[in-house]
């Protein structure tokens, strides 16, 4: 149809821009990796080419694991993420199911409130929440963040699951009702088992959000042994003007691994969670 050779169009419309996006997207991770492998002598030498490692060493990793509380932070982060994700999924299901499948007065108002709650940004809540957590005596306990993370995760899970629950055909529910199942049985035995992909999407996304959370953890967790990875790295690997760059990069890389690992297995579910509401709804 056109005179322009096909390879040139492909190059200009696909490979060049794709290469640009991949390069800029992934370069910081490359930089993280090589910095974590460089010995200090190489790290702080301004004369040598910085983009390669001449004498790779695992010293920073060993130091990070033995001299800091990184393993405790990792355990805390995982515990908090798993617990708050589980709580959010259960509460999200309880909220989404009636909104998606029942007819009752006030349903529209509640659905709108849930959506609005999802859009309340954290900085609007952290000062009063700090006050509340303080009054409850929960400062420096993991309970403080396990309680507060679901404030952003429950509305998200509910929103995503409303879309999922709506896809289950009414006929299935009616058939179960005719067979004598009550509403609760219909839900647990007929509708919920069909929505497991939705639970995985919501779960993966909620888990990633918990791992990413910083503000609440920064305010509520001020002691080493209750800190999460992001707060621990920022608060304890940067002391005044002294930066432990090698260890910081090792921490950044190791701290990113759980999410990246989980994500690589469930990319499709993650994308489904990401695009829920914007494309379907």
């Amino acid at each position, binding site marked *: 149809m056109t005179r322009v050779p096909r390879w040139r169009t492909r190059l200009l419309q696909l490979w060049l821009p794709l290469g640009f*996006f991949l390069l800029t997207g992934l370069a910081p991770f490359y930089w993280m990796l090589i910095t974590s492998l460089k010995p200090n002598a190489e790290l702080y030498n301004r004369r040598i080419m910085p983009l390669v490692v001449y004498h790779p060493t695992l010293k920073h990793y060993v130091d990070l694991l033995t001299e800091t509380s990184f393993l405790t932070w990792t355990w805390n982060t995982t515990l908090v993420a798993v617990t708050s994700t589980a709580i959010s999924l259960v509460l999200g299901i309880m909220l989404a199911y009636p909104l998606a499948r029942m007819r009752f007065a006030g349903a529209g108002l509640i659905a709108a409130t*849930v959506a609005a709650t999802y859009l309340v940004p954290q900085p*609007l809540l952290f000062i009063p929440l700090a006050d509340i957590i303080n009054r409850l005596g929960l400062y420096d306990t993991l309970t403080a963040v396990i309680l507060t993370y679901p404030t952003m995760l429950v509305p998200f899970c509910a929103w995503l699951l409303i879309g999922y629950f709506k896809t289950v055909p009414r006929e299935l529910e009616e058939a179960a009702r005719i067979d004598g199942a009550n509403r609760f049985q219909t839900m647990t035995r007929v509708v919920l088992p069909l929505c497991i992909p939705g639970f995985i999407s919501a779960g993966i996304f909620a888990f990633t959000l918990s791992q990413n959370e*910083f503000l609440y953890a920064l305010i509520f967790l001020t002691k080493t042994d209750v800190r999460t990875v992001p707060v621990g790295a920022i608060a304890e690997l940067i002391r005044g003007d002294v930066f432990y760059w090698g260890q910081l990069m090792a921490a950044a890389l190791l701290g990113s691994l759980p999410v990246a690992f989980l994500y690589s297995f469930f990319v499709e579910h993650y*994308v489904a969670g990401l695009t829920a509401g914007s494309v379907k709804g």
Partner: protein
Amino acid sequence: MTTLASEPIAGRRPLAARDAISRWLDREAVFSWLMMALPLAFLFALVGYPLADGIFLSLENRPVAQAGTFVGLGNFIEDARDPVFWQVAANTVIYTTVATVLKMVGGLALALVINQQFRMKNLVRAALLLPFIVPTVLSTVAWMWILDPAFSPVNWALVHTGIANPGPSWLGNPILAMCSLIAINTWRGLPFYGITLLAGLQTIPAELNEAAMIDGAGNWTRFWYVTLPLLKPVILIVTVFSVIFTFADFQLVYVLTHGGPANATQLFATYAFDIAMNGGQLGRGASVALAMVPILALSIIGLTIYMRSRD
């Protein structure tokens, strides 16, 4: 006879009561409210109540761990007289506007690029999403080292190619620091736009593009008159999301610049944090955080009207 007759009746009574209860529980409204009671109570206690508490706090002079005294709109008047507050407002608007435009244009380009057919598409898409997946604080640490005044690889390249010597101080110069923040926010948020818009692109029926092609429309015409109008609802939702979360951004600024140099990169969230957590003035901090609401609401309403009016 009487005993025989009374027995089944006595036995039926609790059964009838149980029946009535389970029938009552089976009513749509009853079942719904019972299911929603716990999550709604949770959201009320930890979102609704704090929101209201925040409004009360903003009307008080409230040092940490002390009782507050009611000062009416005193905190807001203090905000209005505080030159840093207005600088923070300007910074936040600039940061949000520029980063959102960059993410939108870049994300649309990214979506169009990966919407084509090529090998290892799934792997490439997964790799492109990485900046969005990795915890922000951890990737920001990598950026901090990339922009380090002495050991920046960017400056190394600038010096060795002879473009600049010495290289610029990326986080020490007010304008460059803001540009750096915007660039990193864009780097992290662009995949979200890209993947969501890609999902939107994939819902556009191929026949529409084919029909336009038969009518002689070129690539650009098809993009402008077919793709873009159909993508508009998705663009609107993604933008509203992104505007809210960029406007209220905290992590990136807190880790990279702490609002410096000289408040040049201070945003509402970091300024409220500084006043409330470091300065111990909870009331004043709450008033700065609340000041986000009208600007945020206005921009969302404005955006919605703008997108609707161009239908």
